[in-house]
């Protein structure tokens, strides 16, 4: 009798769902069944500041808690005096661009420094005003960095005003390319600078960074709300689709009003551990990219730079960055500009011996010496210890605590413990053996290990089918961290992306 009743209810319930689908009301998000979904029963409580909006809960992921986060949220004036523009920061550029300045030249912020010989319209400009003191070359005479010693008093190149309401898209694009704003965009797939003719399907902006020791975007945007909104307005003119903003529903408080009250954009809330803040993950859960699609992504500070161009008529590449890591005396937020010199940033700090400077976070950043410069898209300097030591039976009985997702370490007993990580590999490279561990930390419907194997054997169809277009290095960085076989996933992915880019 009970079973019969249950059957009747079940059939009625299914009919309800079928009806919802046929009239197009079922968009996959609303629940048309009379039974609550499992995910609804067990989902964490939605924070109050989210309001009525729906939240995407990402179960997979892992937050690596490291020592060396800034204690104060106050932004101090930076000590950097030397800055650089680095052509290798831009993927897909020819190694020897046409440099427009010479050593000894005076430049203003916003003056063109170089352009790619293949794409002459897109200008790369000076982040600060000052004197060009060096043009350093790398391998095979490629241009590695154009170094500028900044003036005490910053001078900006005066930009012609541009009326967003009147100008056409072509004029806007030409204006952006001429004045250096085009290089702020990154186009997926491949994370490259868009070609002049490219029209993005959508534009995605993540307003939080979940990487270890990453800066808090709410601090970054404080005082720049108007510029941020202006930047969003400009972006709206550039895409035929929409501008998506990813917001953090896991934070302790509500995100800045610059984000929650932004106009003309589609807002999506995400709740999850790292890499929930990665824009690639957010795209996957909003509107995934196929091989034909092109979407653009920007960081919060790039949007601000873009907005300032239209508000104040100048190229303002000032950045709030976080100087972090357990090896420096005082981790803090500082106000400086794009491409600041690493050594300058830690001038006022005591730095331990034998350290590694990283432009960006510990997962996807790049190793730098004190004489080198932060990369174009990085707003973080991390200083960690080098791990070039031998450890007696380190694989069996590790004596010092270390970050790990593995249950073989007692880390799960101390969920809030912060670790002092170093660059030791904790083991040697091996073939892929353990399975399923990447999926645990990657909140995407994707099989990273199989994708890696497809890349290694150059199987184009598989690479495309398994979603290589959806990924950039930072998205796989956490997978690389957890990899038991110590495989270089980010490097393999980039090789695969390069192959696919040559093919297309």
């Amino acid at each position, binding site marked *: 009798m009970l079973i019969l009743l249950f059957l009747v209810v079940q059939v009625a319930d299914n009919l309800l769902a079928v009806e919802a689908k046929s009239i197009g009301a079922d968009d996959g998000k609303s629940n048309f069944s009379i039974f609550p979904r499992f995910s609804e029963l067990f989902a964490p409580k939605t924070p109050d500041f989210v309001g009525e909006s729906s939240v995407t809960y990402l179960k997979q992921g892992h937050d690596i808690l490291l020592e060396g986060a800034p204690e104060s949220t106050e932004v101090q004036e930076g000590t950097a005096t030397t800055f650089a523009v680095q052509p290798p920061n831009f993927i897909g550029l020819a190694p020897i661009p046409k440099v427009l300045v010479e050593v000894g030249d005076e430049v203003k912020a916003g003056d063109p420094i170089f352009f790619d010989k293949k794409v002459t319209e897109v200008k790369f400009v000076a982040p600060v005003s000052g004197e060009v003191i060096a043009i350093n070359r790398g391998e095979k005479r490629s241009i590695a960095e154009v170094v500028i010693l900044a003036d005490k008093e910053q001078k900006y190149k005066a930009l012609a005003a541009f009326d967003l309401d009147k100008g056409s898209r072509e004029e806007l694009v030409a204006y952006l390319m001429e004045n250096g704003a085009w290089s702020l965009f990154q186009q997926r797939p491949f994370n490259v600078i868009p070609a002049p003719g490219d029209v993005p399907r959508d534009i995605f902006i993540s307003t939080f960074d979940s990487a270890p020791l990453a800066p808090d975007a709410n601090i970054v945007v404080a005082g720049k709300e108007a510029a941020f909104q202006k930047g969003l307005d400009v972006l709206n003119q550039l895409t035929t689709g929409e501008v998506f903003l990813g917001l953090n529903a896991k934070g302790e408080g509500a995100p800045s009003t610059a984000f929650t009250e932004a106009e003309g954009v589609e807002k999506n809330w995400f709740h999850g551990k790292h890499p929930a803040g990665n824009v690639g993950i957010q795209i996957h859960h909003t509107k995934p990219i196929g091989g034909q699609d092109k979407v653009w992504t920007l960081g919060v500070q790039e949007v601000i730079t873009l907005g300032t161009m239209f508000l104040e008529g100048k190229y303002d590449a000032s950045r709030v960055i976080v100087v972090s890591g357990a090896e420096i005396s005082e981790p803090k937020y500082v106000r400086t500009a794009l491409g600041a010199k690493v050594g300058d940033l830690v001038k006022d700090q005591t730095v331990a011996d034998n350290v590694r400077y990283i432009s960006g976070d510990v997962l996807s950043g790049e190793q730098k010496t004190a004489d080198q410069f932060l990369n174009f898209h990085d707003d973080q300097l991390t200083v960690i210890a080098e791990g070039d030591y031998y450890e007696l039976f380190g694989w069996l009985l590790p004596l010092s605590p270390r970050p790990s997702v593995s249950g073989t370490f007692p880390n799960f007993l101390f969920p809030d413990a912060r670790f002092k990580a170093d660059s030791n590999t904790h*083991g040697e490279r091996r073939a892929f053996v353990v399975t399923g561990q990447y999926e645990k930390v990657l909140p995407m419907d994707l099989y990273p290990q199989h994708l890696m194997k497809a890349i290694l054997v150059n199987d184009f169809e598989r690479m495309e089918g398994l979603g290589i277009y959806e990924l950039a290095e930072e998205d796989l*960085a956490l997978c690389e961290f957890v990899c038991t076989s110590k495989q270089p996933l980010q490097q393999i992915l980039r090789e695969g992306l390069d192959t696919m880019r040559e093919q297309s």
Partner: protein
Amino acid sequence: MKKALLNFFQRIEPDKKKSPFLHTLFDGFFTFAFSPNTTTAKGVHIRDGMDLKRTMVHVVLAMQLCYLFGTYNIGHQHYLALGQYTGLLEGLHLKIAHGLIKILPIFIVTHVVGLGIEFYYATRKGHPIEEGFLVSGALIPLIMPPDIPLWILTVSIVFAVIIGKEAFGGTGMNIWNIALLARVFVFFAYPTYISGDEVWVSALEKTAVDGIPTYMSAQYGWAHGFFDWIFSGVGWSTFGDGGVLVADGFTGATPLSLAASGGWESVTSVYTESQMWWGTIPGSIGETSKPLIILGAIFLIATGVASWRIMVSMVIGAAVMGMILNGIAPSEFTETTPGIFKFMAIPWYYQLSMGSFLFAMAFMATDPVTASSTNTGKWVYGFLIGFVGLIIRVMNPAYPEGWMLAILFMNTFSALIDHYVLEANMSRRAKRTQVAVS
């Protein structure tokens, strides 16, 4: 201490060009003692503390209780057959000594042969020694009968490691489970040493009393003599000379062979349920004690080293098949039917606790290299092992156990399962991006 050891190692490091084999060997031992000082270069700057050595050693740790009990049980079964020291703790020193005499040679030969081949290939291919054989080498002794001749063991390991692993490219590349490959080699090449009723209890030999064939304990060798010398020194009981006839009613049959011939009744006429549960029954060395295997499985799941998906789905698969068999041949109708129908009628939950099901589930099916590598695939893979394995156990007239064959069979198909899971993922992605465009 650490520094002195490090200096010592660095002083004795052989030249890589002059003696590559020695250098590979040195490297193997050195990285065993010390985590290397390599640092990250490109990509991530910090790495998880977990590496392959640590993964492997946790599997080996999970088996340690099986080793301890297996050693004891070899001796226990021997004396049980003779009708001496039948209490669990009686003659404990003799049982353990006898167990050690049996298991140590097997363990040593396994590792010398297996690691030797591993070292040789590592040198030849110029890569560091990989940890794969740590687990295979620990598993192989546990799944062999205690009396396995060492030359057969050697041949089977040579086959498994060379044909099964190195031919495919080494650790992480093999298609079939190495330990099971070694066992299946013995199974097909030397069936009399690994099947039937006489191989599961150690140190017995055939004899006849009044023309009726029976067994007696074999002559003890020098190792037993050595232990006798010690035991008599401290005034304990000794092994003696052997030649003792077995107790009345001894069969040597395992519960499964009894089940195959006479169903549950004939199993319970020889063994009690608690004996089968605690593992004081004849069988392969490490697979008899269920609680200890379950403890190992819990350890593996808790540390996340082995896949719980495979274990759970394998239990489900075997349970489903067991229920189907029960349904085909309910015990009410098969009381008078001999043979296979009685085997089919054994309640499915007893099927799970008999034989090596749990051992296969915890340690064999979960090998990540040979199992399906996608999470969905693991559910299918585990389910089918349980499903197929029970069919083989019950339906195979020659040998009443199926997990070894079922796992090797599904190893073969694991890539196919993955293929379909990936195809589904690809078509899902194609569909999703189409929707996004329109």
